[in-house]
């Protein structure tokens, strides 16, 4: 996992509520043998026309939102099935931050395993952020996880809450494997003893 660093990025607005994981990544893409490469299928059914061309009507296809890392989106984002393919697709597309009023539980948890920061805000804050983006598409928001702050050009700044343990993991880029590897000295030492005790396993 990449460590989550302070950044200033384009914020894309999707004024839709209850976006479920089936929309985020439709089921026909789950049979892949990879964990990567889901980004091109993100929001597939909205994003592409039947002939495979880009749907110009879809928010994220707007040139002004190209390269966005921050997704500002309506209530209850990520509901539906538990598929981890959803955060895989979001991260692979390039988002590392989501701002919404609420998230489905499993999806919320899955975000942290994949280096995505899901920020919860009050409804009035979300409305203000949406309005600011709509008035001036392509603007950049600043996200400072360390200080739990989001800043915007129009000054719709706010601070957010986050579980300290998860914050630490995002900042350090540590996933479960990363956590274990903090004990790598102990693993190395164990392996040395292992080689002495069970030499036939290392022959």
């Amino acid at each position, binding site marked *: *996992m990449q460590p989550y660093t302070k950044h200033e990025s384009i914020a894309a607005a999707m004024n839709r509520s209850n976006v479920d994981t089936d929309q985020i990544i439709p089921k026909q893409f789950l*049979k892949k*043998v*990879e*964990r*990567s490469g889901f980004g091109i299928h993100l929001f597939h059914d909205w994003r592409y026309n039947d002939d495979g061309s880009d749907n110009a009507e879809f928010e994220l296809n707007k040139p002004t939102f190209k390269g966005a890392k921050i997704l500002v989106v309506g209530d209850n984002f990520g509901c539906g099935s538990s598929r981890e393919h959803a955060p895989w697709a979001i991260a692979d597309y390039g988002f590392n931050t989501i701002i919404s009023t609420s998230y489905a539980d499993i999806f919320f948890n899955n975000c942290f395993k994949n280096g995505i920061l899901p920020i919860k805000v009050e409804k009035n804050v979300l409305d203000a952020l949406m309005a600011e983006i709509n008035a001036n598409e392509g603007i950049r928001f600043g996200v400072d996880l360390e200080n739990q702050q989001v800043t915007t050009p129009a000054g719709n700044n706010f601070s957010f809450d986050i579980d300290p343990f998860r914050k630490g993991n995002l900042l350090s880029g540590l*996933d*479960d*494997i990363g*956590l*274990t*590897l903090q*004990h*790598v000295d*102990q*693993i190395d030492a*164990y*392996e040395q003893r*292992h080689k002495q*005790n*069970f*030499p*036939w*396993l290392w*022959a």
Partner: protein
Amino acid sequence: MKKTMYEKIWDSHLVAEAAGQAPLIYVDRHLMHEVTSPQAFEGLRLSGRKVRNPHSILATMDHCVPTKNRNLPIADPIAKKQIEVMAENCRENGLNLYDMQSPNNGVIHVVVPEHGFVHPGMVVVCGDSHTATHGAFGALAFGIGTSEVEHVMATQTLPQKKSKTMLVRIDGELNKFSSAKDIALAIIGKIGTAGGTGYVIEYAGDAIKALSMEGRMTLCNMAIEAGARAGLIAPDEKTYAFLQGKEFAPKGAAWDQALAYWQSLPSDADASYDATVVLNAADIAPQVSWGTSPEQVSGVNDVVPAPESFSDEGKRKACESALAYMGLTPNTKITDIPVDYVFIGSCTNGRIEDFRIAAEVAKGTKVAAGVTAIAVPGSYQVKQQAEAEGLDKIFIDAGWEWRDPGCSMCLAMNGDELSKGQRCASTSNRNFEGRQGKGGRTHLVSPAMAAAAAAAGHFVDIRTL
């Protein structure tokens, strides 16, 4: 303090125990197949991590491989892709893979013991719940998920919660028509599919000591169906004799050193367990499952139970829906249940001993009209051995199909499957709805019972043959 075998293995594999985190245990052997590994490799690649100990891994292709026409390209494009990706991942990471064309190919839990890759006292994992099989060697062996597969590849360790211990003692002597499979089913019938939840089961007692290594593997294989994390059997002379001379077994002076260690592993006398279950081997009749859970099982001389016979509300409901799915009415004699299909194979009963026993029953018989019977060796080595003994002829003469190895109808992922409503006598381990094909009906039995059912067209009490 007196220790159980589980505690000895646990203690000797503890790497770290940090406050607020699960204990970290070391993994000696990591087994792999094509279905649960691809995203784990991808995860490694994305994070720029490497396989820590490639030599700890043995991989095979088994779940979606065809069991006939192996020379032709795989028809299912998704299965084909999985096979190709597996080969590529193993090549890229320098892993030992028994691919579809290898003479060593077969079902992972059949192949691994054939090469002596698992020894007593090891911690063994695989992205597959039937990893429990290897407990037959006195190794702590259990199934893990795809993210854990990645975790083990990267760190050679796993964060684990310590299990409770359960002693399952089978006293006395098994009648000659019952087998390890019947012991496994009888235990699950007694303690239920959640009976072992949170436990590692240690099987002991005279009837266990009397089992061959093949039988012990069959028994441990199904520890998972009893809900346990793993099954364990103390290593003894049979274990050592089985391992000696195998490719990955220690040799020369190393053998003596290993042997001394292995002999220290059995539970101390008077070690205490969190739970104990005792069965009398003489009471275990050949078993037949009648429902859609391995705990829904009876002796072959019994009848299909009525839902009312269960005092527990949940079990009554489960019985009702199982009978509806299975198309069975209460009080039908088990021996009156007809079969359309017979499958001998899987990591539960796809070893040489299983085919020997089944062939003995099948010899001189004919598969009943309207019945399809397939024999699927657990590995090419089993297939070759069986052919050397002429067992293939016996099956073919009796009207069976003699196939190439693979998981086949155990989980019906490779195209070998039941059609809706078809009823199968199967030596596999799970009789869940749809496991052998949508709408298919599975009855779990031993190889001898399966072979007898093929000839009769219905279940038979093999004790009366």
